[in-house]
């Protein structure tokens, strides 16, 4: 196991920093990597900001990519933390299983999904990924492995789900896959002319398995918040036509495109973004209705464009994702969208999603999800956009919302503290267990987490 010095960043390519990286392949090497000093585990680097960056010691977990056991009766898969979600799908979709919760890319690791307690388009019904995790083997500061679950070391379990890798290294986990009858999704798209209509459609679609909206964040006035909602259901066998029914999991392989170079900074301007959004809206309106979409295109549209993060140019971009409580969602979203469209600092990809309630909403001690509406946008990492994001922080706080750490690269410590009353207890636990001295990322330092 060699030490490598690599310039790393999150998916947003902002910030970038040189890190000493080790890539252990087994438990002994992982212990040795941890013994080098405080650091953080890193999976496939798809968190957007600085969650998986530690200049002194970033431990690449991609060497821990073994699947260990599968029970076809229960659908429980036991796998090492560095196993990629895409590999899980490749192996198990042909056998009729699919991840119960998936983020918008399949290029994430199981460890990363647990650490960020990721949610998907089915959050309103299924909850977050942590709800499907049975147990986790966590390597603590002393290099010892501790198995935790809802019944065994339950505190550690709750703190590790959504704990951003700050409670130890996720070495192995067991989680449940769900049964599906095909690799196809019945997608219904609905055009909502404004924010109120979009929210009404979400509320009326509570029974849909999947729901998400692309939102035109530059539309103004009466069009404010106009959205294309995409609802989805796993297609059952009897809903497929004959050739598909004969091979229900044989979906076409998508052709990959690539962003081969960084877009020049002028390519992204208020006009190009506005034009893109307007075009997307018109296409959505024209294409409203139901159609059959393969799983890869439905869940991971951007995975078809390798390195799509380069469209924001060399300086990278920052994601903003907040969730607002249900009661203040309408007012809060309205204010957020007003602020964005007034600034003209639009985002190509703004996403709105209704999040569900219940025990599974956020499975971990500091999980992001709560019942309400979540809004996600990305902005070039320019001074103007960063200033706008501070304004969005303030609106979110005023409406009782909080922020998604897996997206964050720039929030201030005081904003973070005011957003979430659960943080103090998490910090105390980190100190008391000795985690704080051993597991540190640039983000945890910035936020004093």
């Amino acid at each position, binding site marked *: *196991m*060699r*030490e*490598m010095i690599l310039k790393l960043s999150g998916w947003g390519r902002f910030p970038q920093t040189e890190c000493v990286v080790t*890539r252990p*392949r*087994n438990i002994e090497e992982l212990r040795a990597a941890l013994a080098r000093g405080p650091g953080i585990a890193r999976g496939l680097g798809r968190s957007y900001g600085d969650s998986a960056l530690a200049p002194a010691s970033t431990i690449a977990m991609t060497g821990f*990519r*073994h*699947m*260990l*056991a*599968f029970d076809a009766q229960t659908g429980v*898969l036991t796998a*090492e933390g560095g196993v990629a979600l895409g*590999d899980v799908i490749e*192996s198990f979709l042909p*056998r009729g299983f699919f991840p119960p919760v998936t983020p918008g890319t399949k290029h994430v690791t199981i460890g990363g999904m647990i650490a960020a307690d990721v949610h998907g388009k089915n959050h309103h019904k299924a909850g977050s990924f942590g709800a499907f995790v049975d147990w986790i083997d966590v390597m603590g500061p002393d290099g010892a492995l501790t198995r935790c679950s809802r019944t065994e070391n339950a505190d550690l379990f709750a703190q590790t789900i959504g704990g951003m890798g700050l409670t130890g290294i996720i070495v192995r986990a067991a989680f449940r896959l769900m049964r599906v009858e095909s690799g196809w999704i019945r997608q219904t798209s609905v055009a909502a002319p404004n924010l109120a209509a979009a929210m009404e459609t979400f509320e009326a679609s509570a029974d849909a398995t999947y729901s998400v909206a692309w939102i035109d964040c530059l539309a103004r006035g009466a069009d404010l918040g106009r959205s294309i909602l995409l609802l989805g259901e796993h297609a059952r066998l009897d809903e497929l036509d004959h050739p598909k029914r004969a091979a229900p999991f044989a979906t076409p392989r998508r052709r990959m495109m690539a962003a081969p170079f960084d877009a020049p900074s002028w390519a992204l301007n208020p006009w190009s973004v506005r034009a893109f959004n307007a075009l997307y809206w018109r296409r959505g309106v024209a294409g409203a209705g139901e159609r059959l979409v393969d799983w890869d295109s439905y869940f991971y549209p951007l995975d078809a464009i390798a390195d799509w993060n380069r469209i924001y140019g060399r300086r990278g971009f920052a994601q903003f994702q907040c969730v607002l409580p249900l009661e203040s969602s309408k007012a809060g979203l309205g204010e957020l969208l007003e602020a964005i469209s007034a600034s003209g600092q639009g985002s190509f990809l703004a996403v709105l999603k209704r999040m569900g309630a219940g025990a599974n909403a956020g499975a971990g001690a500091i999980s992001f999800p709560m019942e309400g509406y979540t809004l996600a946008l990305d902005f070039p990492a320019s001074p103007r956009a960063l200033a706008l994001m501070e304004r969005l922080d303030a609106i979110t706080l005023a409406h009782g919302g909080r922020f998604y750490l897996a997206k964050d690269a720039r929030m201030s410590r005081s904003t973070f503290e005011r957003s979430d009353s659960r943080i103090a207890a998490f910090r105390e636990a980190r100190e008391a267990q000795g985690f704080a001295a051993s597991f540190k990322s640039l983000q945890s330092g910035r936020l004093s987490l």
Partner: protein
Amino acid sequence: MTKDPVLEKGPVLVLGGASDIGLAVARRFAREGHPIQLAARRPEELETAKADIEVRYSVPVSLHAFDALAIHAHEHFIDTLPALPEAVVCVVGLLGDQRESETDLEAAVRVMRSNFEGPAAILGVIANRFEARGSGVIIGVSSVAGDRGRATNYVYGSAKAGFTAFLSGLRNRLAKKSVHVMTVKPGFVATRMTEGMKLPPALTATPEAVADQIYAAVLKKRDVVYAKPVWRAVMGVIGAIPEPIFKKLRI
């Protein structure tokens, strides 16, 4: 899954099964439904790899202790396999340290034996079994380093050159006996062995890419495969330099 008329779904034996390329090749064949036999010096360290392949691809994986240099045990090793494999992939090798090999004869001989004598011996045994059966695929992973001796790695390179010549002769002998012999010559591969080295990306393959290439080449019954393919041209140029000039270069 691709139809695989060459191998049906017969077992594939990987010699040097603990190496990154060996494991990638094992996964590639397992993905197509082949049972896998992983042979390595310390098979007990491959339990996780075995579980991984079995869980991912629902094929049986067996682990076998194998020391390429224990030549007198090779016949017995083949006898103890659960079945005579349909294909064998030999990834056994030792890069060694050229400087050390220049002064330490023991070290030099170890590199030579690990890259030539051991691999050639076991493949010779397997070749006879395949010949008797009248079918089989033998895949030997050699190296571009065997194409021309260079100051920086000629001990390793010379052994690989011997292995390359052995494979070529074996191919010639068995071509009429329905046994296909394929030579694979990787250039730079991003493995544990090369971790942390600065390798030119255009010339560096991942173990998975090498495995993909090997699998595709087996289906096409290719004889000599460079990985990446660009290495065929690179080595063509290096091979064409006249010796009086070559000896003064530092490549």
